[in-house]
């Protein structure tokens, strides 16, 4: 699993809204950085990394919800959740298949045909999940989700005296 990228410039005194902009900006970029190769069922870690990145983004959006314009935040959070769901539909069979294959290897030869038949059923679910993920990824670029998330990250309310890029909180004494 890919380690979360650090969100630079944060400290205890950072304005909450600035922390929101920084965290959501980094977490959103992370999601799309993991989009390559997720449809490759021979490497199940890729879809896992993108799913984890999506979860982190969703968590950041929920934690910092109070800092964003309500309507756009709600809409984008729903879209991020839908992406997470479709990644989960592909990832869950990956995990289940790996677990069942591990169990089958530990049981007797007479036990294996039953477990293998369940694995076969799950492989069909994995393929369906992959088809849905392919459609979702196509929709992702059409809907410009990455760009709209970047806009959301920049849309937090700024104090009048601070430039938009400032992360200038101070550590309380």
């Amino acid at each position: 699993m890919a380690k979360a990228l650090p969100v630079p410039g944060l400290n205890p005194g950072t304005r909450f809204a600035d922390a929101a902009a920084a965290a959501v900006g980094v977490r959103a970029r992370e999601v799309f950085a993991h989009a390559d190769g997720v449809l490759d069922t021979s490497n199940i870690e890729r879809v896992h990394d993108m799913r984890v990145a999506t979860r982190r983004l969703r968590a950041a959006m929920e934690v910092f919800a109070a800092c964003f314009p309500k309507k756009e935040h709600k809409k984008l959070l729903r879209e991020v959740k839908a992406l997470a769901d479709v990644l989960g539909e592909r990832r869950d069979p990956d995990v289940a298949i790996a677990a069942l294959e591990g169990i089958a290897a530990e049981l007797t030869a007479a036990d294996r045909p039953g477990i293998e038949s369940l694995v076969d059923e799950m492989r069909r679910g994995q393929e369906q999940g992959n088809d849905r993920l392919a459609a979702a990824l196509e929709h992702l670029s059409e809907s410009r989700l990455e760009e709209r998330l970047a806009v959301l990250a920049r849309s937090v309310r700024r104090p009048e005296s601070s430039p938009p890029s400032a992360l200038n909180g101070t550590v309380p004494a």
Partner: protein
Amino acid sequence: MKPRKVKGLDPEGPLADNARRIVEVRLAELRSFAPKALESGGQETLHDMRIAAKRLRYVLEMSEPAFGRAATDAAKVAKQLQDLLGEIHDCDEMLPRVRAHAEALRAQDAEALCDGAGGARDLEPGAAREAPNRARYRGLESLGTYLTARRAVLFERFVGRWEKLESTGFARELLDRLNRPEPAPAARADGAAA
């Protein structure tokens, strides 16, 4: 499960104050599920508790710049709890699938035997030897038994883990530590790697 609303968040206020409020609510939320989860061991409550542990973990991870090692350590505890509850959840999800799959195989076999009877007045027991899926039942039964037993073992472990956390006052300690933050391992003031 919808998260509890956190009141009094201020976008203009410092990260530490806001994060502390969120951690307090998420921690209380997690603990609120424990009595029912420990008593019933039911799938739904344990699932809710897993989601609560995940939410607590994420807010702690995000507030590491504000709370340093206190957040890092508590996030690890929340992750361990989430992982353990996740393993139980996997058993809960897999068991019905195993049963449903075995049931579907039985239905297929019954249909095949019925078709093979070719309009006979009765069916000989020996016909079951021709059931196309007959070699598959045993593995599914073994798998179901294993998952049931594993679930029970993991639940015992969860109970022990939770009781230990509560008896050592992890919640009180976490809230205390958030009020006197230490540098995070990767963000120490002297720049040294921890």
